[in-house]
């Protein structure tokens, strides 16, 4: 298996879903059951991507495969030199793994959707959109430069828009779609400016070239501040896409889309693209940038967790949990736990997709009931859904023997180490708090949905387990939430093949003085770093090791605590949730209403912009145009004036002449003059005035 074959296969993988999209859009109207073609294509892509992953990880484990061609060439530009904008793909281990993750989940979601979406009037269109999404997502994964990253970034935004607003007859759906796109654009602007900074300095978009240049000490505008800025700005893209505070508000609303879409896009893949981006630019992040990222991530995970505590919509809970988990990953990048961030991305993708599809199964069974207060006891009616859902919940809560435990624990260890090394203890504190809350609200969800007695009997009676095409994906995904796929030792993720062999922290390229103290290499390490052999300072590695067990124990405790409390509240009803809510009314309301962030945004940014727009429109209409029209009015006025000149001004002259004549006493009679005479008077006066002006002395 040679490189070019891998490249070609990757390109085929990339374009297969697009082919599906085009086929479905243009032929969907005429050919029935065309959606199966799309499912088939995805299956094909999945197989190919597994092949690619296998080839990459086995034969080219340490070597990145890059292929590119020139997209835009601007010749020899004056004062700049040649500018070539390239398109290309870069396959490293992360890419290879992501290919499989994306294709797998996408395939499963396609499969799930066959039944879930049956009967929809835009059935084929739906699969077409899924196709274009998959294409764009694979593009993000495969690209080797920032511009293409941005391009695919926007395209996933488009597919997300189309899929959230799929049921556009509902105003809430089209609102949510619009909101998602626009909120994402805010982040994208930052990302775009970040890319602009890099391009301005390096005249290229290619990751490797830029990183290499930074490594050589060639900084944007020769300033570390600009490097930090570039990092943070590009991270803003991730803030938007991965729904980080303060741009997280779109993701819960995005649940208006069909549930499989939520699973694919708004839980497993697209939202993880932000984390993927952070992972990609990790090497160029300065300490300041990383700190910002860590804080944003931690704060996001916390705030989302607090909101998730009180939500009653099954998808909303999952949505906020997604936001929270994404915050985790981002925080992980920020504290330098690169590998665990990516690891969590992968594990989270599986169990969160499973959760969403599970919720889809529930919703399907309950005839589009989403409120968990109206559920309960579904365990019996939907056993497979229940068990897969439970496994995933256990995973996300960080219970041992699950994938979630492995990745979450690593992240928590990372934060702990970070806290020790930099004394930013707040970040690990938030991390553990969130872990507890996650366990609590996830089990609250499970208990309220599946345990206890049914609260809506009518719907309960009609509920039934979903058909095979829907449960099969659940089973697959639940299976993937077990530790065994990643490491043989359920308590030592770092020893597993995933982290040991496949995903390694790359060497920082930022100037040494801009890094965290603990990331500065010693002299020998610096030499080694140039060759990409050592990635982190020994100190950091050691601290990570130190943090491993305390983090594990702590996380076990907090997760257990969370689960326990959830059972106390909802299963055994030892404590009344309502009473507590009554007691902590303010906090409860704050949480239930998502901290009023939507309202605040509406009142400030949205209304502000619209209001400003209206003011400007008024300004435009009345003032700017008014000036123009005003000058026209003045012109008309002047013309009226000169038009009436003959009648009035000249008459005025007459009167004046009358007065004047009277003054000299030549006539006491009031002068009776006609128009011709007024003209003549004017001539006479003109002559006098001209004489006064042009007299030669």
């Amino acid at each position, binding site marked *: 298996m040679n490189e070019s074959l891998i490249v070609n296969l990757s390109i085929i993988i990339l374009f297969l879903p697009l082919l599906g999209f085009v086929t479905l859009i243009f032929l969907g109207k005429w050919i029935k059951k065309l959606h199966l073609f799309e499912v088939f294509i995805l299956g094909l892509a999945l197989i190919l991507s597994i092949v690619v992953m296998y080839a990459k990880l086995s034969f080219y484990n340490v070597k990145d495969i890059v292929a590119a061609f020139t997209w835009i060439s601007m010749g020899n530009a004056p004062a700049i030199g040649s500018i070539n904008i390239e398109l290309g793909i870069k396959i490293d281990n992360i890419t290879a793994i992501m290919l499989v993750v994306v294709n797998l989940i996408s395939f499963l979601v396609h499969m799930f959707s066959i039944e879930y979406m049956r009967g929809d009037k835009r059935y084929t269109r739906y699969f077409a959109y899924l196709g274009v999404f998959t294409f764009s997502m694979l593009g993000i994964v495969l690209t080797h430069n920032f511009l293409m990253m941005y391009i695919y970034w926007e395209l996933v935004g488009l597919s997300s828009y189309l899929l959230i607003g799929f049921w556009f007859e509902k105003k809430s759906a089209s609102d949510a779609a619009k909101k998602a796109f626009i909120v994402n654009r805010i982040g994208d602007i930052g990302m775009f400016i970040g890319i602009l900074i890099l391009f301005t300095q390096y005249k290229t978009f290619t990751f490797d070239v830029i990183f290499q240049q930074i490594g050589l000490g060639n900084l944007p505008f020769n300033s570390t501040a600009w490097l930090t800025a570039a990092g943070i700005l590009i991270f803003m893209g991730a803030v938007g896409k991965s729904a980080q505070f303060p741009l997280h508000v779109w993701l819960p609303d995005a649940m208006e889309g069909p549930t499989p879409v939520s699973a694919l896009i708004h839980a497993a893949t697209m939202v993880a693209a932000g984390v993927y981006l952070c992972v990609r630019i990790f090497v160029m992040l300065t300490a300041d940038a990383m700190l910002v990222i860590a804080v944003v991530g931690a704060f996001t995970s916390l705030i989302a967790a607090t909101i998730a505590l009180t939500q009653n919509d099954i998808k909303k809970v999952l949505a906020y949990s997604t936001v929270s988990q994404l915050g985790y990953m981002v925080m992980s990048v920020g504290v330098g736990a690169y590998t665990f961030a990516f690891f969590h991305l992968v594990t989270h993708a599986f169990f969160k997709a499973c959760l969403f599809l599970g919720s889809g199964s529930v919703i399907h069974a309950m005839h589009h009931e989403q409120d968990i207060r109206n559920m309960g006891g579904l365990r019996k009616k939907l056993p497979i859904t229940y068990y897969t859902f439970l496994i995933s919940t256990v995973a996300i809560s960080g219970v041992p023997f699950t994938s979630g435990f492995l990745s979450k624990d690593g992240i928590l260890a990372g934060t702990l180490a970070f806290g020790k090394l930099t004394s930013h203890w707040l970040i690990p504190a938030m991390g553990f708090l969130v872990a507890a809350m996650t366990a609590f609200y996830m089990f609250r969800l499970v208990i309220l949905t599946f345990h206890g007695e049914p609260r809506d009997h009518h719907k309960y009676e009609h509920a039934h387990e979903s058909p095979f095409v829907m449960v099969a994906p659940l089973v697959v995904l639940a299976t993937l939430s077990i530790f065994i796929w990643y490491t043989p030792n359920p308590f030592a993720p770092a020893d597993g093949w995933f982290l040991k062999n496949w995903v390694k922290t790359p060497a920082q390229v930022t100037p040494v003085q801009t890094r965290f103290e603990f990331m500065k290499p010693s002299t020998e390490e610096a030499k080694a770093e140039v060759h990409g052999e050592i990635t982190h300072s020994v100190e950091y590695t050691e601290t990570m090791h130190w943090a491993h067990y305390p983090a594990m124990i702590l996380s076990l405790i907090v997760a257990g605590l969370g689960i326990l409390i959830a059972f106390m509240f909802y299963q055994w009803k030892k404590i009344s949730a309502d009473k507590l809510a009554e007691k902590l009314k303010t906090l409860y309301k704050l949480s239930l209403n998502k901290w009023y962030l939507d309202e605040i945004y509406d009142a400030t940014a949205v209304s502000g912009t619209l209001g400003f727009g209206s003011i400007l429109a008024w300004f435009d209409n009345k003032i700017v145009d008014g000036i123009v029209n005003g000058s026209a009015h003045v012109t008309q006025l002047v013309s009226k004036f000169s*038009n*009436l000149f*003959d*009648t009035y001004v000249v008459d005025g002259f007459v009167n004046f*002449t009358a007065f004047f*004549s009277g003054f000299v006493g*030549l*006539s006491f009679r009031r*002068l*009776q*003059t*006609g*128009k*011709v*005479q007024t003209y*003549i*008077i004017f001539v*006479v006066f003109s002559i006098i005035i001209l004489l006064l002006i042009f007299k030669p002395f």
Partner: protein
Amino acid sequence: MLQVGLTHFLVVSAILFSLGIYGIVTRKNAVMVLMGIELVLNSANINFVAFAKYGNYGLGGQIIALFVIILAAAEAAIALAIVLNIYKTFANVNVDEIDKLKE
């Protein structure tokens, strides 16, 4: 003994000129306005003759004055015809009432 010189003629001419203009702009009757015009023309005539006489310019001035007189006559003829025409249409010859054409 008062020596009549150029200045005196010019003063007379200026007075005539002013009276003529005054008549033109104040008289109601079109014929009276025409009289004013005659005054203006004749003030110029006085100038011509006086300049010719006192400036030793030869006979040119006098000849010009003759031309002007003839022309004034022609003008008066046409003018009166027009005034007559006006009288036919408007039944009066008050120039200030003939203002249908304006603005």
